[in-house]
């Protein structure tokens, strides 16, 4: 039922894109590029939530993890003059934030929602306090065009002419899809998220699996954060993650806890935003800018309301594991 819906919508959108490409090549390409750029951090952040929830942990703190690693990535790069070191700073901070969250939510068996909220509030406090004005990046991130593929019509300029983070995001999604469903790690992770008692009985260390997965997911949040400040924005402002960590959770749900599904959901989000911005810029419709800004949030709520009853989260999600 749900799959048919998803396919119908996908086909309609693809046909729409084709049609629009025949009408106006330049605009279509620019809208699609915008959509992809918009979707990339959401995709990676959705993978953070996905790895955590597949292991049985709700991660509400993605927002804070993004913020901290975007901060560390930007100021690390600005201070050392190296984008690579900045990126490593971002990922390292993500891992630390992941470990901190795992300590609360897994090791200490705290309420997972409260642990995540603490991560968010601490991240807001620390990044506002240590924020410094007037820092600039040493360079903008390089755009890597992939030979031959970049010359394809439509998909060439959109997909194969991007920064490295964009390719990284696509690789992460495919990698996780394979890891989750075709490897022992994936099987263990899903077992821990669906039925931790059974997993425990069969010799899987539930607590350790959860702790490691949540920490590694933090590293992914580091990638998304570094992308935001180093590639997407090229700067850092207080609170500039703007709720992406929460939207990512919604995207994870639309994708039914599947990496590829979440990828599609994030692209849909990006596309909506891209089309709305283009309509606004072309003055086709006179919508106040505030309503354009609202769009991703309204869309999140509407889609959650439609989808939430139809998909099933991992059974043990949200519950700290207690040995009987």
């Amino acid at each position, binding site marked *: 039922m749900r799959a048919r819906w998803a396919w119908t919508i996908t086909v309609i959108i693809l046909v729409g894109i084709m049609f629009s490409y025949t009408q106006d090549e330049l605009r279509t390409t620019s809208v699609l590029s915008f959509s992809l750029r918009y979707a990339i951090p959401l995709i990676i952040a959705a993978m953070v939530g996905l790895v955590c929830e597949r292991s049985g942990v*709700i991660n*509400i703190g993605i927002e804070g993890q993004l913020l901290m690693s975007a901060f560390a990535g930007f100021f690390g790069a600005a201070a050392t003059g190296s984008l690579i070191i900045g990126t490593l700073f971002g990922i390292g901070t993500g891992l630390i934030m992941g470990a901190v969250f795992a300590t*609360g939510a897994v090791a*200490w068996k*705290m*309420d*997972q*929602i*409260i*642990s995540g*909220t*603490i991560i968010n*509030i*601490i991240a*807001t*406090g*620390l990044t*506002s*306090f240590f*924020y410094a004005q007037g820092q600039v990046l040493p360079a903008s991130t390089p755009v890597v065009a992939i030979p031959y593929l970049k010359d394809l019509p439509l998909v060439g300029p959109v997909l194969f002419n991007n920064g490295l983070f964009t390719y990284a995001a696509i690789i992460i999604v495919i990698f996780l899809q394979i890891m989750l469903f075709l490897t022992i790690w994936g099987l263990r992770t899903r077992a821990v998220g669906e039925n931790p008692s059974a997993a425990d009985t069969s010799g899987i260390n539930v607590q350790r699996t959860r702790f490691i997965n949540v920490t590694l997911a933090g590293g992914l949040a580091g990638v998304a954060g570094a992308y935001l400040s180093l590639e997407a924005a090229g700067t850092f402002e207080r609170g500039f993650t*703007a*709720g992406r960590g*929460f*939207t990512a*959770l*919604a995207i994870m749900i639309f994708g039914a806890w599947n990496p590829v599904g979440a990828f599609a959901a994030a692209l849909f989000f990006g596309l909506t935003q891209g089309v709305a911005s283009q309509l606004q810029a072309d003055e086709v419709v006179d919508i*106040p800018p*505030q*309503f354009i*800004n*609202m769009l991703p*949030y*309204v869309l*999140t*709520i509407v889609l*959650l*309301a439609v989808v*939430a*009853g139809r998909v099933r*989260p991992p*059974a043990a*999600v*949200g*519950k*700290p594991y*207690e*040995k009987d």
Partner: protein
Amino acid sequence: MSSDGPAQTDLGFTDPNPTLGPKYGVVKAFAIPIVSVLLAFAVGGILIYFQGVNPFTAYRVLFESALGDSDGYLRVMQKSTPLIFTGLAVVVGLRVGLFNIGAQGQLIVAAIGAAWAGYHFDLPAVVHLPFALGFGMLCGAAWASIAGVLRAYRNVSEVITTIMLNSIAIALVDYLASRPFKEPDQPLSRTPLISDSAALATFGVIPSGFVIALIVSLFFGWFLIRTTEGFRFNTVGLNPNAARYAGISVKRTIVLAMAVSGALAGMGGAVETMGVVGRFEPAFNAGLGFDGITIALLARANPIATIPAAILVGILRTGANSLQFETGIEPEVVDVILALTLLFVAAPIVSRYIFRINAKRKSKSKGRS
């Protein structure tokens, strides 16, 4: 498996360890928040020290500017008032097992609602005051109800919807204040001033909004513990399955609690508009919602304990500006102190390491797991 999504877990206001004896709960209720606040100040002091300022000087400046004279008292009470309301809003949610992190959105929607009701109408004060206040509460309740209904009937996590509604509210009030409700012939995006008949008076140094906040806290202290509806709230929060078995409509209780929570946050916004600002200006009420979470957890979801917790946060927020003026320390240090307070209160750091005796007794009686 219940169909209600994540199971209700311990939110900190029930004693999770009955083995620790009856006194443990009392000690915990008072000692943990106090020790947590002191620890947070200590860590904040280290941050201040590394900024090249004597932490004791900084803290003296902070507290003196907030509590040094009657002007300071007034500002502390004005700052604390919406915080008591947002704290209560979060408390009511926690009691039902809901995590309302959208008090911010509910508050600003109500603030602009009260401002509109305040400037658009010309009524005698007897009617106008309750009307503007009530309209603000209604706006807050309606805003929160979106999340409540979705949680009850579509099983959508209220955490995601309330945070999304925050962002929507910010954009919405920005639009309202810059287009339809905008004060004419003014460069700023803000509403006109409310009429005198809708303004809450300040008696000496005591703003009447603060008094309302105290009364409402006391009312909820009574409501949650002594009334049938309060009992329903607590039962649904502690065990929704047991509540359903006992014939309580869980869905109805969730929707009602979310509406009450939103009305409380909304009251905070309305009182701020009618008693302090006098109109709606975007960005005036930033951050109050998240402080509400800290306050609610610091108060361990007790409505009456919300009062001292909110006053403490109010003092810090009032003193923060003078801190920057006199010592050059960024006022955001207060955000760090509050975040640390929340960490120490909610995480078992304090209860585990400060009350080591209890913890040891626990591990002996239960064995290491």
